[in-house]
């Protein structure tokens, strides 16, 4: 068991290292020089002033040193939770991210958890009720196959633009200040609903179909047939089938996490929802490299932590992996 976790942790550290290095390389891969772009924002006529500013800014950005030094400085920043300053907000990147993270988590966590739980439940129910199956299967396929952006646009068009049930964009009404008052909370919920729904629906379709197929498979396995032959109650057979079918779904969750996070970015852009996804969009259009680096790093860490939690949960839930780790298998 200890060996297993050791191996897992090493894998995660290596992944983190590689992903962070790629993240560091992004500004270097993007066209243009960050210092020039930053200076381009100001209308500087004097050449000497320009050169002086260029020197100051280069020092401030830490790009006046050799590449390897920049790389080490970057890691130093990462370890001290310091990602530099955002051009766009002229504030520390961490502050900008901290403002956006609650919005993104408010979309992602309910969307992932609810779609997983409801998808599994309804998929399992569809596996044994023909009528429900005839409804769930086509709808599930439709949602699962829908690109995030397409579904977000469709929902926005019908429910916001045509029917005007929900606001089409932003995180809350611009007139209401952010704060813990009912007016803001109500406004935030109304703005939250459509982006949440589009992320939820796409994942829900996938889970429901996956669970339906797995439960049908489990109900046909030898142990289910054996239990039925011995007169076990339907409930018991279904409970076993559900429990065993959830296991592959759980590893599916780890795999799907990255996709959902990616889809979330697109959805936020469509709804101009002020989370990390929208921030990425702004950072790219403003060529705000430090902000972009910071957001990606944050997403990398988030996805890796979530994956690690699922890995551990899987080991705890499935006796087969749990025991093979202690070396007790035949």
């Amino acid at each position: 068991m200890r060996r297993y976790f050791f191996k897992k942790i090493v894998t995660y550290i290596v992944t983190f290292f590689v992903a962070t290095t790629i993240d560091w390389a992004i500004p270097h891969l993007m066209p243009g020089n960050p210092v020039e772009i930053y200076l381009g924002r100001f209308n500087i006529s004097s050449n000497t002033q320009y050169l002086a500013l260029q020197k100051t800014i280069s020092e401030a950005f830490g790009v006046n040193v050799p590449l390897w030094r920049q790389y080490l400085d970057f890691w130093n920043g990462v370890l001290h939770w310091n990602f530099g300053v955002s051009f766009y907000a002229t504030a520390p990147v961490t502050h900008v991210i901290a403002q956006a993270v609650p919005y993104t988590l408010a979309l992602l966590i309910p969307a992932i958890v609810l779609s997983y739980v409801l998808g599994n439940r309804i998929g399992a129910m569809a596996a044994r009720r023909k009528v429900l199956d005839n409804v769930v299967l086509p709808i599930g396929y439709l949602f699962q196959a829908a690109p995030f952006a397409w579904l977000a646009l469709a929902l926005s068009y019908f429910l916001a633009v045509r029917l005007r049930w929900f606001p089409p964009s932003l995180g809350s009404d611009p007139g209401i200040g952010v704060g813990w008052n009912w007016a803001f909370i109500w406004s935030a919920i109304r703005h939250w609903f459509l982006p949440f729904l589009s992320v939820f629906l796409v994942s829900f379709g996938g889970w429901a179909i996956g669970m339906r197929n797995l439960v049908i498979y489990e109900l046909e396995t030898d142990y289910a047939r054996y239990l039925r032959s011995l007169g076990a109650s339907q409930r018991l057979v279904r409970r076993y089938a559900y429990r065993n079918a959830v296991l592959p779904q759980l590893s599916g969750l780890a795999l799907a996490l990255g996709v959902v996070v990616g889809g979330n970015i697109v959805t936020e852009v469509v709804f101009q929802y002020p989370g990390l996804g929208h921030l990425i969009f702004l950072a790219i259009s403003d060529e705000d490299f430090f902000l972009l680096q910071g957001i990606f790093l944050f997403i990398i860490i988030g996805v890796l932590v979530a994956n690690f939690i699922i890995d551990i949960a899987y080991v705890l839930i499935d006796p087969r992996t749990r025991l093979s780790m202690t070396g007790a298998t035949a």
Partner: protein
Amino acid sequence: MSMLEIDKVSKVYKTGTFGGDVMLALRGVSFDIGQGEVVSLIGQSGSGKSTLGKILLRLLEPSGGVVRFDGRDITSWSKHQRRDYYRYVQGVFQDPFSSYNPLYKADRVFEMVRGVYYPSSSRAEWEAKLEDALESVSLNPADVLNKFPHQLSGGQQQRLLIARALLLEVKLLIADEIISMLDASTRVDVLNLLVDLKKKGLGVLFITHDLSLGNYISDRTVILRYGATVEMGETHKVFGNPQHPYTKSLLTAVPQLHKKWESNGALVTTGPLARSGATAQFEADPILAEADADPRRYSRSAIHPRQQARAEASDGPKLSLMDRRDVPWHQRFGVRGPDYAAVIAANPPPVMVECEPGHFVAQSA
């Protein structure tokens, strides 16, 4: 000179979640197969008989030892040379249906042979060849050509696969449990077909767990247990005058039509299930006594201490022969470490002694 020589072939598998444990599946197995000779390789599940079949078909690499075909070492052959080898050596396996792609007609297996080995043959030449092959397996072309696999019986499928082998200049057929999934009425036809082919000079390695089938068809018999040869020789000598206690115990378990199990004495097993009162004590069981007394054969020196403790806890002295087979392999012979050569050296095969001309038995300690 023998057509196929198997010379001290060993196979070590990695086991465990991260491949930390090893399992010794074959221990220095040596025998040979001559032209037109049927050798049956008999062993229970886990004896390593199928592993050996796969090594001979070059589907697995041996960890030690050499296989020679017509005097040439085949274990080091390249992929290209291997194609030539398959011209002469072919395999047929237990489940015939799985050898076919159910979406295509069954005779597609012939076209595949043609594509690889006879790309330049003309249609007429090929058809004549095919007809020959089908005739030698007593199949009527009209019955089997242009049909899907599910339209053919198990016996027909198996014979079709043998016919495919015959399309090549096959000299040796590795038949791994080829009739255990067939009904009694059709398995005999396949067995008799092998006899006919043998008379025409085909060598056959007949791998089976069924002693009566092995006995019926083979000239020589090799009995494998835990990856090592325990007894081998001319079939009528091995079966008529079995020397090794393991061979004897197998023979007492074979179900026969006209002789009750009880008349052979109790099954070598302890526990209350042993009928007719002859409860063999573990210590009195010659095979296990031998297995445990002979440290050369069952070297535990290299076993990881924790594993050894577990092995001892779970296969305490009460276990019977049957239960012992249930103990996972790597707990019985588990050796840790990456050095396969050391694993093989630490578990040498028993010495084979010639007890009568053409009849060898593993020497008991």
